[in-house]
């Protein structure tokens, strides 16, 4: 994975399955760092927001002064959110009983646990549009969020039962589901490629 040699990727590590994302980055030999405090974001080229509990992560983001630094980072740098990460990236959370304040880095609305509670969690093979074309990936939906509104600038890269489940808008990528529970790194590579492409774009005067 020589292409990714110069990329330094952060993983938001306040709570959740961040170790699984770190494992996947490790499989590709990517330089990585845990992000727990604002200074951990310095000099990173991209950030992954893992799955976990949205409410917990949102509370810790505010408690440790990460809200503004994360928003600033996400305005210019590539960010990839899975499950809870997607919820935090959203513009608006429907039926927001816990009063979570999302980072609003992406023009989508989501419904938490939109596919139901844990007894309805499932795996599915999805067709996803990634740089090299259409690929099939195995996706785990675990108390997953459902996208209920897509902004006009948001691209849909995969659909399941009529709802967008993998979406992109400029430098932001978000998935309702997990692929990090196993060793299939195709979605991560898709994100890293997008990150590099953007770096190239950014460097054009």
């Amino acid at each position, binding site marked *: 994975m020589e292409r990714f040699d110069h990329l330094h990727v952060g993983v938001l590590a306040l*709570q959740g399955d961040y170790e699984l994302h770190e494992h996947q980055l490790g499989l590709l030999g990517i330089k990585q760092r845990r992000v727990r405090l604002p200074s951990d974001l310095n000099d990173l080229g991209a950030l992954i927001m893992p799955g976990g509990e949205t409410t917990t992560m949102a509370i810790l983001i505010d408690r440790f002064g990460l809200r503004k630094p994360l928003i600033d980072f996400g305005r210019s740098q590539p960010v990839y959110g899975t499950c809870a990460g997607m919820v935090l990236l959203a513009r608006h959370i429907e039926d927001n009983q816990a009063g979570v304040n999302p980072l609003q880095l992406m023009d989508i609305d989501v419904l938490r646990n939109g596919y139901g509670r844990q007894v309805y969690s499932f795996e599915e093979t999805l067709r996803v549009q990634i740089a090299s074309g259409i690929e099939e990936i195995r996706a785990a939906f675990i108390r997953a969020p459902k996208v209920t509104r897509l902004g006009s600038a948001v691209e849909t890269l995969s659909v399941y039962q009529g709802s967008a489940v993998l979406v992109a808008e400029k430098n932001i990528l978000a998935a309702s589901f997990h692929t990090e529970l196993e060793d299939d790194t195709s979605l991560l590579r898709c994100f890293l490629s997008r990150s590099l492409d953007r770096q190239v774009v950014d460097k054009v005067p």
Partner: protein
Amino acid sequence: MINFDDEKHRVKVGLAEMLKGGVIMDVTSAEQARIAEQAGAVAVMALERVPSDIRAEGGVARMADLEIIEGIKRAVTIPVMAKCRIGHFIEARVLEAVEIDFIDESEVLTPADNKYHIDKWSFKVPFVCGCRDLGEALRRISEGAAMIRTKGEAGTGDVSQAVKHLREIGSVMKSLTVMSSEQLYGIAKEYRVPLDLVRIVAKIGKLPVPNFAAGGVATPADAALCMHLGAEAVFVGSGIFKSSEPEKRARAIVGAIAHWENYEIIAEHSRGLGDPMKGIAAESIPEEHQLQTR
């Protein structure tokens, strides 16, 4: 036949993965559940009585009344867990029927079956089970548990038993990684578990499902100690709502777990928390009154 690659099992273990780095709090009312959620709990355990009250009051402890559990479920967005008695697969089916997110087949309740645990493979809902050593952990995993936690000695506020169980599991797992195949056969036989499972542990040096700590955690430092000893998240039972300022303590334990490697932050979260639960030394409890031996 054990099939860890079974997709139904993977989504069960998947939820356990999402709870890592978090604090799961015992609650007995919707109000406590909301306090726990706003303090940053990753899940709540819905109970009728916390372990220290079960210990004090004695008698038979059973699955909580569904009215309590459902009230808690309506009050929060985070996952809701509930306890059933060891071997009581009907209590478990009832909890599954009301769509509880995780079931704790727990030694804190009075066991319903002194010989068998529940066959957890046949459920859609994931299970967590307690253990004191690696053999116990692997037996529960071979029955289909999607998460393991230490037993500790629940309801004491004394972390020493959780520490003992974490150290025991950690050191034996480490020894497995350097054993010969003949020795691994011996371990499988001694533990009464499938050889495949022993081989997996020997290969990866850890359990094939998340490994959490429980039993006696009462302070932010207790919680961080468990993380340093190999726990991947922490259950706090009586420790929060039996302390003088539950909201503050809950918030502090969540902060200490998120930053378990940062001692300055743990220090910041160890100030002005009021009185912890009073507790009793676990060593002073006669064996017949210990919950961990169940």
